[in-house]
């Protein structure tokens, strides 16, 4: 007997409704907030309707565009480095390496540490007077460097901290994907005379391209949302050199007490992330085989 068309909707309906509400409610709330001038700690009834003023201010504010540029550069450098390092590590450790369990555990540890702790750890590591990094440099006769005191080095510091924390995520995704590559296909490639390089880049990686795409997408989204580590490490400074958009939104909302303005910039961030996600999915959509 053929299942009526409405049956799947009955089964899926409640879950879809809950998911849609969980996603849509905050989104619509943020959008609504963007049209009001409301300060945290005051009753919502006191919020003033300002129309598109907050959106207009966001688009005209040079700090927003500066933060967006910083965010794009941060995301590009971090995600690129994390993808390359994560994939390289997974390829290096996918086989039967001695003490494999130890290495895998070691590599995923940073990912499991709370971002605030990561921020504090790196703040101490980069400390100009007492940090480990300067201590190592001192062994080679190098004068202490104020890592968090100059724009370029501070930006490098937040990138290093992010790469350290999130490369393991790429590693764990990739090592799982590589473990599922059909050994027979690889064997066939080797029989056909493919060397390691050809096997890796023409057989293995194309076979896990869907996982690479989804990992890239997840890292990209996360890179736009990072806040705590930068908050602790540099608070966006020196100047505004490490103020990425999420930190700018935080400051607008909780320092400037302009929740409407923060919501408007959040919508801008959402558009950017959605656009980049669409682009990443165009590279290789892991769901396209499922389309009917």
């Amino acid at each position, binding site marked *: 007997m053929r299942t009526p068309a409405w049956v799947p909707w009955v089964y899926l309906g409640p879950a879809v409704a809950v998911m849609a509400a969980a996603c849509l409610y905050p989104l619509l709330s943020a959008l609504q907030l963007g049209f009001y001038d409301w300060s945290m*700690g005051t009753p919502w009834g006191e919020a003033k309707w300002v129309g598109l003023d907050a959106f207009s201010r966001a688009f005209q504010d040079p700090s927003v565009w500066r933060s967006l540029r910083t965010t794009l550069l941060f995301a590009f450098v971090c995600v690129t480095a994390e993808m390359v390092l994560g994939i390289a590590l997974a390829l290096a450790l996918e086989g039967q390496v001695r003490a494999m369990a130890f290495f895998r555990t070691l590599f995923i540890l940073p990912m499991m540490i709370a971002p605030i702790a990561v921020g504090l750890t790196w703040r101490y590591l*980069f400390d100009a007077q007492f940090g480990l990094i300067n201590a190592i440099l001192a062994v080679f006769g190098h004068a202490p460097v104020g890592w968090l005191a100059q724009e370029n080095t501070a930006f490098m510091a937040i990138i290093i901290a992010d790469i350290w924390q999130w490369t393991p995520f790429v590693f764990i995704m990739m090592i799982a994907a590589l473990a599922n590559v059909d050994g027979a296909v690889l064997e066939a490639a080797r029989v056909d005379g493919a060397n390691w390089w050809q096997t890796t880049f023409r057989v293995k990686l194309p076979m896990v391209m869907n996982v690479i795409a989804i990992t890239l997408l997840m890292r990209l989204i996360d890179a736009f949302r990072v806040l705590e580590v930068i908050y602790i490490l540099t*608070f966006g400074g020196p100047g505004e050199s490490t103020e990425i958009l999420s930190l700018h939104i935080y400051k607008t909302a909780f320092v400037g007490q302009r929740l409407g303005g923060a919501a408007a910039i959040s919508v801008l961030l959402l558009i950017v992330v959605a656009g980049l996600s669409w682009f990443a999915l165009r590279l290789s959509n892991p769901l396209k085989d499922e389309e009917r």
Partner: protein
Amino acid sequence: MKRRTLIQTAGGGALGLLGAGLPLFGYAQDRFAKYKGQTVVLSIPAHPHYDAMVKLLPEFTKQTGIKVEVDKLAMARMKDKQLLEMAKPSGDYDLICYVVMWKGEYVKKNLIRELDPFFKNAALADPNYDFKDVVPRYVENMGLVGGPKGYLAGPGAKLYGMPYGAETSVLAYRRDIFAKHNLKAPDNYTEFEKLLPILKDKAGIGALTSRGQAGHQCVHAWLLHLNPLGGKVFDDKWNPIFNNETGVKALNFLKLVSDTGPVGIPGYGQGEMITSFLQGQAAMYLDSSLIFGQVNDPSKSKIAGQVSYVVHPKGVRHSSQSGGLGLAIPKNAKNADAAFLLMQWLTSKEQDKAVCRIGGVPSRNSTMMDQDMVRQYPEYITLRQQLEYSDPDWRPIIAEWDEINIQALGVAVSEALTGKKKAKEALDGIVPKVTDIMKRGGYLKG
């Protein structure tokens, strides 16, 4: 019987150890009895003074029967949580510790209670409290809202908070280093400016440690110099004047501090600033009196016994900061009376001494005058002198200050410190932004 038990208990154990006095609590049982069993939820920051305060709380519960639950957060995250809690019809907090800069905003948003009704309530007020003994500058700075400029003492000012963890700035210097190189602590900014490169050169360590991180930290450091040099952020009509000659001079001085100080000052928060001094990486410290309790603590300091204190050097005037932390009762507190009793107990003469003995900072003149306390902290002599110059108007703590402080001045000062912009260029660059904020706040017409 109950009173006797209380006094007997008070005579020994922790209370005796901390030196809290007895008479206050001899009369206390009726005042506290009604609230026995209630729990006061207290929002505090991770901060040396409050770390010490927490050790006193079991004694409060023992004496009064009022329990205390502490919610401790990093200073930077505390305000968001407090705002969220205090905006609810019924919040979780009964008593909050706040940073001085938040007082105007909390009152403007109708989030905290005026304290006069509590102090006038005979059922709650302690007759031995001696309000006038609380450092008046601290009361003005931490507690008063609604007076001149909205935050100073004068017509319209009302009491909304009590200083607890309040501070001013003093100059601490390494006695051993100064003696070795035959140097003298600076009396004024001319001497100060000359001393910095000499000290750096001779001592081989940073001359003066300082905050410098973008945002509040670097602005705090700049304001420390701006005020004695005669500058202000706004004129009497709230027009920005921080970019005038004095503002630029103060910023150039801070740049000199950064260049001759320990490496990395433009990235220093308060923690790094203090650590670099305590660990012997800087010969001078000019900041909060909070450092008193830490200098001679061997677990934190390598310079115990080598530090002397003088008042903040004079520019065109004597001036030092006035700030720090206070206690207030949220409008939506469930146990407001019990919270007041805790606040009153903590800020009493006896407990002010008690918290100082274990690393806190004084809020009362009697603590700074007490011979035993002065033996433990000879620096209280300097502190008393300094408090005469402490300026409650050293920064404009209007509700808009946080935004100006962090998102405008905090960027400009930081950019000047790293050398990205010249001091004048950096300060001029944010005048439109600050003007815009002041217009939005209704201080300027626009």
